[in-house]
């Protein structure tokens, strides 16, 4: 379907969820997870200020690099790895079809 991509989200129990994601609704990965009622709080509403949507990118998609806000927040987060991202900063687009991410543990 046009402007619908498929994304796999592995939750904290290791269960895989196949999500259909619209790319024409100005949505990000945090919002997508919330819309499927996956356990992502998105506490700050998407301002890269809480790290409650911290996730790891498992597939080898080339995503836009982290911006300063995201880097700053990940500095204060826990369980951070090289493939860590904040879901709220990953804006859905057609190039992300097939993306696979895993939700990070919730720290502190």
């Amino acid at each position: 379907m046009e402007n619908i991509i498929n994304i796999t989200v592995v939750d904290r129990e290791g269960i895989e969820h196949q999500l259909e994601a619209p790319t024409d609704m100005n949505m990000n990965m945090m919002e997508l997870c919330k819309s499927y009622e996956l356990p992502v709080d998105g506490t700050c509403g998407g301002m890269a200020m809480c790290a409650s949507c911290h996730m790891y990118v498992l597939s080898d998609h080339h995503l836009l690099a982290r911006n300063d806000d995201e880097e700053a927040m990940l500095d204060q987060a826990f369980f951070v790895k090289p493939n860590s991202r904040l879901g709220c900063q990953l804006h859905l687009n057609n190039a992300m079809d097939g993306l696979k991410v895993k939700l990070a543990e919730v720290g502190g």
Partner: protein
Amino acid sequence: MIETDILIIGAGPCGLFTVFEAGLLKLHCHLVDALPQAGGQLTEIYPKKPIYDIPGFPEVLAGDLVQHLMKQAEPFKPGFSLGERAEKFEQTEDGKFVLTTSRGTQLKAPVVAIAGGLGSFEPRKPPIANLSDFEDMGIEYIVRDPNFYKGKRIVVSGGGDSALDWSIFLANGIAEKVTLIHRSKSFRGHPDSVQKALDMAASGKINLLTDAEVIGVSGDSALRSIKVQHLPEGESDIETDHWLPLFGLSPKLGPLADWGLNIDKNSIEVNTFDYSTNVPGIYAIGDINTYPGKLKLILCGFHEATMMVQSAFKRIYPDKNYVLKYTTVNGVNGF
């Protein structure tokens, strides 16, 4: 004991606007908030961010909106207990509520309005299993009195302003030794603070460890040492008297969760007729409540506050008649 008409838990935008709406009905309010200043997440998380969906304000900075709300509430002389977390909660025989804060302040009111937003802001704690064994026994998340660290060996973790500022301050003749540990090489604090900390590291006043992280703590009755993981590999132990993990604040529902209210996914269930909870006399408004169709927006919180005080008035004065008055006709008559 402080007595008021409506005890508001949470001094964010919704709590502040409640003061105004309650004031129009001649009801007095007292606000309690865990943060040291009013404004909730608007002040704590995003004071410089513009908000675009406040009716009548095409664009307003979050911090400015809080200032406007404070000014709007001012004629009604609200009481404030800031920097105090709402802790214990009891119902008295006369049907009122008594709240005890984390500092022991007692507040009494016939109506409680929980406008707690995301919950109370608490220090973000590193995920180390036995961390709680040493809390206040060598591990502190907040520096209350710098002189407490006089002559002590201190380890500070974090890369933001508070980690930098306290490292600099404590290394200037207070602590015996200051080690600053940060996960990456770059610091996100104010450029002046970053430069100062780097200069002090170069001159040996601060022991700076970058690309490193504290992964363990040990001791007996008090903290004795921490385990540091160096990236990409390698571990070492550092003997220390104190560890200050300064990773900012994150909101937690906290003691509210144990007050007998119906809770669904960290939010308090309410009746949309008047935003009352399952406990008569306790209301929940703003981001902390949930109901079918709930939208977590400041403007919805304002609506909820307005509806809620009408119901609170009827509860406090069951025999008094009241009709809605317009501020355009009557103005705003403070206390």
